């Protein structure tokens, strides 16, 4: 059971803290001959697989490195366009490493503000009176838990669907935030949290939650 990451969003939808606790490695490296077995395309400054799945390489995976050299966005290590490079039969055989693309800090900011509005729409479309926003969002590989404080700060935890005890963890993170971010004289409200004690205590709380909340019936 694992906790994947923690996000703290201020009341305007800005991301003020993010921590990746556990990032699973799902990468596959393989040597290919010409032509490639699958279709690649440009997407968000990355080269991703758009069709064809085999040997652990899945649709949506991005090209991470070619012949052991990491790619830079949609260009190869030496500045050539990756798609053009892979179109040239003279460059084959070629060894390509694929994996899920890491979120850039800009993307994290965008996702946090996206969740901020989804939260509000979730409460507006409620069929029942007095509903809060999204408190838990479930997919087959993770569950997102969100706790909004009375002051509008949202604490978001991404965890394994079977991890229990997340509600207690969210309140613990709120407590850590009040103790170590708000009481820090160098911290200005609504701004990104850069407090060492907050980091340390948060990591401690995540460790405890991971150990305690094993195989629960879901929180």
């Amino acid at each position, binding site marked *: 059971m694992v906790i994947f990451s923690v996000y703290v969003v201020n009341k305007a939808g800005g991301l003020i803290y993010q921590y990746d606790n556990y990032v*699973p490695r799902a990468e596959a490296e393989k040597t290919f001959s010409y032509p490639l077995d699958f279709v690649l395309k440009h997407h968000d400054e990355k080269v991703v697989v758009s069709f064809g799945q085999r040997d652990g390489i899945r649709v*949506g995976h991005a090209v991470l490195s070619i012949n052991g050299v990491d790619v830079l966005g949609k260009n190869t290590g030496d500045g050539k366009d990756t798609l053009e490079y892979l179109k040239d039969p003279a460059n084959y055989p070629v060894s390509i490493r694929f994996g899920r693309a890491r979120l850039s800090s800009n*993307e994290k900011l965008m996702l946090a503000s996206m*969740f901020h509005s989804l939260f509000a729409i979730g409460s507006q479309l409620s*069929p*029942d*009176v*007095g509903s809060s926003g999204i408190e*838990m969002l479930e997919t087959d590989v993770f569950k997102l838990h969100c706790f909004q404080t009375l002051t509008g700060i949202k604490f978001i935890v991404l965890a394994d669907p079977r991890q229990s005890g997340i509600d207690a963890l969210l309140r613990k993170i709120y407590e850590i935030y009040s103790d170590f971010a708000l009481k820090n004289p160098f911290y200005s409200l609504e701004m990104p949290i850069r407090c060492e004690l907050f980091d340390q205590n948060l990591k401690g709380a995540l460790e405890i939650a991971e150990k305690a909340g094993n195989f629960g019936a879901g929180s």
Partner: protein
Amino acid sequence: MTVHNLYIFDRNGSCLFYNEWNRKKQAGISKEEEFKLMYGMLFSIRSFVSKMSPLDMKEGFLSFQTSKYRLHYYETPSGLRFVMNTDLSVPTARDTLQSIYSNLYVECVVKNPVCVLGLSLDSQLFSSRLDAFIRGLPFYSPRAA
């Protein structure tokens, strides 16, 4: 235990069918606007979830819950989306949504040559059978809610 309402969207985002059983609060906007808002929210959740996910997903988004209701989501490979809102005591309604698709939608709409696919469903057979199906669900009892 109760069922609040049900939306069916096609892959282009138009609302094919909507019905409500025990809805206590309206969104305060016209139904047309509400369908667009609902579809927009689902579309964003899909993209949000696919970026946020630390691993590759199979089913993707399944449901979310607030303090008052739970939204269950089922999407077919052809892009048809079934959305049902229930109260929090219903743990999962995925099988229900799937059987609405396979036993009611396919039987009464796809197999009906008069129903034009992609337009709002006005088949009376479909709506009456769906209504009977929902009212027969074990978790349908507006009294208790």
